[in-house]
């Protein structure tokens, strides 16, 4: 086991503590955004753990957890927590129904895909993010080193594809971009927007910094995942770890109790 294998376990530990601390706040304050954040963070932690596990060995249900919670749903659920702070309750209710139904549907699609996984190509030599998808090769495109290909009929055409765990055209893969776009808009967009509002009013500097750190953390993991899917997987574990740390520190900053504006005698201020 190398240090690279250990990093996702450290990320998982941070996310576990983070999740516990957020859910504890929900238990005390009963504010729905803490519940959605807690669920999303638990999904993030489960995804990190599954990623670490799959670097050491194969288990189809760990892969189920990795894809559904780690690759598809977590950003959307964390972001939905932020959305509840920014829009009217009526819209929150509508979007909550859409998110829950969409998540259940994605879970159902993933379950129907499980018997068709191409597990024979699984290897611990590559990150799971680099081997889950079956990708059609465009004419003239070269086969990546060490990749196995398959020639099959897809959408009425004969194509050559790099084999992946999920079969070509798995419907569950179509759901992922929807969740990720929603997650990016609400989690990153929401944090940037909140930071901007406080910054513009020149108030609550801790919330400005907290939201900037949350947005940076979320963007870091989003960028690392995108790079991994483009074949640059060496940054993923480090990206995950820094993302977990940044979001955790950001949350602590943003959730810090606000000091009241203290009225002090003018003389005392002038004497400083």
């Amino acid at each position, binding site marked *: 086991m190398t240090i690279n294998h250990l990093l996702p376990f450290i990320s998982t530990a941070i996310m576990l503590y983070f999740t516990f601390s957020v859910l504890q706040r929900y238990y005390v304050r009963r504010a729905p955004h803490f519940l959605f954040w807690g669920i999303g963070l638990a999904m993030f932690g489960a995804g990190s753990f599954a990623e670490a596990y799959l670097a050491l060995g194969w288990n189809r249900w760990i892969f189920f957890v990795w894809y559904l919670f780690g690759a598809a749903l977590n950003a959307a659920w964390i972001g939905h927590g932020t959305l509840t702070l920014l829009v009217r309750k009526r819209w929150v209710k509508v979007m909550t129904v859409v998110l829950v139904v969409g998540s259940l549907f994605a879970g159902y699609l993933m379950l129907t895909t499980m018997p068709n996984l191409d597990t024979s190509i699984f290897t611990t030599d590559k990150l799971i993010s680099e081997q889950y*998808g079956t*990708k*059609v090769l*465009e004419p003239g495109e070269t086969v990546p080193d060490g990749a196995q290909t398959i020639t099959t009929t897809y959408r009425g055409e004969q194509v050559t594809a790099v084999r992946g765990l999920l079969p070509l055209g798995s419907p569950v893969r*179509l759901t*992922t*971009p*929807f969740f*990720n*776009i929603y997650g*990016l*808009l609400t989690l*990153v*967009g929401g944090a*940037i927007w909140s*930071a*901007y509002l406080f*910054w513009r009013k*020149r*108030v*609550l*500097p*801790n919330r*400005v*910094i907290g939201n*900037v750190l949350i*947005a*940076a953390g979320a*963007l870091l993991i*989003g*960028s690392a995942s*995108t790079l991994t*899917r*483009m074949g640059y997987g060496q940054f993923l574990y480090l990206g995950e770890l820094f993302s977990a740390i940044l979001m955790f520190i950001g949350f602590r900053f943003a959730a810090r109790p*606000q*000091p*009241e*504006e*203290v*009225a*002090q*005698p*003018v003389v005392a*201020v002038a004497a400083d």
Partner: protein
Amino acid sequence: MCAKNVPKGTYPTGKSRMPKDSVLFDKVIPASLIFMGILTVVLILFAAGVLLGIVQF
């Protein structure tokens, strides 16, 4: 605290207000927000590209 509620002869120190002439709040934060906004749009376009089949992986 509203300004009209501040007792005469006192001055709100504003511990929850941003410091003036701060490089962090005047330069770093706005630049970060702009950069992150652009990166978010790029990632959203990328995800949309995947959804539409323009980007494949």
